[in-house]
């Protein structure tokens, strides 16, 4: 028990770092990922924008970035990270590979959410005289909004997990904490409690996400 008390401040700090990483990664992923996913959707053959080369290029880039295991991407990106934040170590540095991994990930999820929008509703928008931009804002994002909200939940939960890997490059956070206390010091109780809190976090993310999705979805 006393070990828990000693660990408490560090647990709190580790959570703080993990949430900091999530707060940087998720909004950037949603912003740029939605944009990228929308362009992928529009440029797809047979869709609303005739741009086969753009589609091929973006598709290949997304696949490339998505094919790196996260740990490898993080190491491979060290020079880029140095360039962007001045150092390859620390919490902020760890968010660089997270963001770069999360954007194409979210783009794929968003693309799928947009593909789920009924073609007939898009046709109705065209018949009203909507421009492509209007189709995106007045039809696609409106009809895909619950799907997109679900995508946000998925990336949040995924990157909550990925953030632990950041501990390996001195990013701190829960992964780093778990290694130091659970692995080097054999403080099993501390480790269990930490895992318990993480499970509770994921449940909370999922519950919140599902509630929002249900609110947004008027299809039933």
């Amino acid at each position, binding site marked *: 028990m006393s070990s828990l008390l000693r660990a408490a401040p560090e647990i709190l700090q580790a959570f703080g770092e993990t949430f900091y990483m999530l707060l940087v990664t998720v909004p950037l992923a949603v912003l740029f990922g939605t944009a990228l996913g929308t362009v992928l959707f529009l440029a797809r053959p047979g869709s609303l924008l005739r741009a086969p080369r753009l589609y091929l290029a973006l598709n290949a880039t997304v696949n490339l970035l998505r094919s790196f295991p996260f740990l490898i991407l993080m190491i491979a990106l060290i020079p880029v990270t140095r360039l962007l934040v001045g150092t390859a170590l620390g919490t902020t540095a760890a968010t660089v590979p997270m963001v770069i991994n999360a954007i194409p990930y979210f783009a794929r999820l968003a693309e799928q959410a947009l593909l789920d929008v009924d073609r007939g509703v898009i046709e109705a928008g*065209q*018949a009203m005289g909507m421009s492509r931009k209007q189709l995106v804002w007045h039809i696609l994002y409106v009809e895909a909004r619950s799907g997109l909200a679900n995508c946000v939940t998925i990336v949040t939960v995924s990157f909550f997990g990925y953030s632990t890997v950041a501990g390996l490059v001195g990013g701190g956070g829960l992964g780093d904490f778990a290694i130091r206390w659970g692995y080097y010091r054999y403080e099993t109780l501390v480790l269990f409690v930490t895992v318990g809190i993480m499970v509770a976090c994921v449940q909370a993310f999922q519950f919140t996400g599902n509630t929002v999705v249900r609110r947004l979805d008027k299809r039933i």
Partner: protein
Amino acid sequence: MVGIELRGVTKTFDTPTGPLHAVNDVWLCVEEGSIHGIIGLSGAGKSTLLRLINLIERPDSGEVVVDGRELTGLSEEEVRHARRGIGMIFQHFNLLANRTALDNVALPLAIAGVAKREQRQIAIDRLETVGLPHKRDAYPAKLSGGEKQRVAIARALATQPRILLCDEPTSSVDPQTKGTILGYLREINRRFGITIVLVTHEMSVVRAVCDVVTVLDRGRSVEQFAPNDHLHRPRSAIASFLARSEIVLEPLGDDASVAVAGGE
């Protein structure tokens, strides 16, 4: 006066099995203020032909003239603008599921740049036209099929179009609702003088409301006649087939199916 004129329009799709002539050199005049039916079997090219009128589908060749303007000669922007004068309704209604009835009806007005307050007023007025003022805050999922189609009609009428394109508007509603929808279409036609093009595969629908009907067979216009001219005898095989069609259950075979076949 001619409301819509198709001059030799052709639309060919590339398919894995080769080019498919969905619409093949169709010449068609739709009289202003009339209800013009387009009938044909599934895959005949009816929907494609309808989409050629508002240029959602661009013809490979031929001209589309609406209200004296050649749409095929306009820029993309001008075509979008011209579409505000052409309403469209669909078999599956195609309402936005995440917008209320009122917001669905107001949407084309927002696109046309109408002020917010006025959008609301017009939308309420249109919902009254189709007898659904009390459903303004309902989401489409909470409406019956017939109500959804009426909201779709209200939406199509929002910008006061001169033309209404209907793609099988009664194919997914029960017979009674079918009567209601067709009644509204005729009412709209008579009261506002809106030209209606009505795609269907049912001769009974054509007989109920159409002044003229064009028969489409594998992308070609094969016959045109007034459905209520009792002296008229269908010349094309498809027309006589559709005129006497009844449902025949095929015996269970390798692929059990229900086919529509003509009598005799």
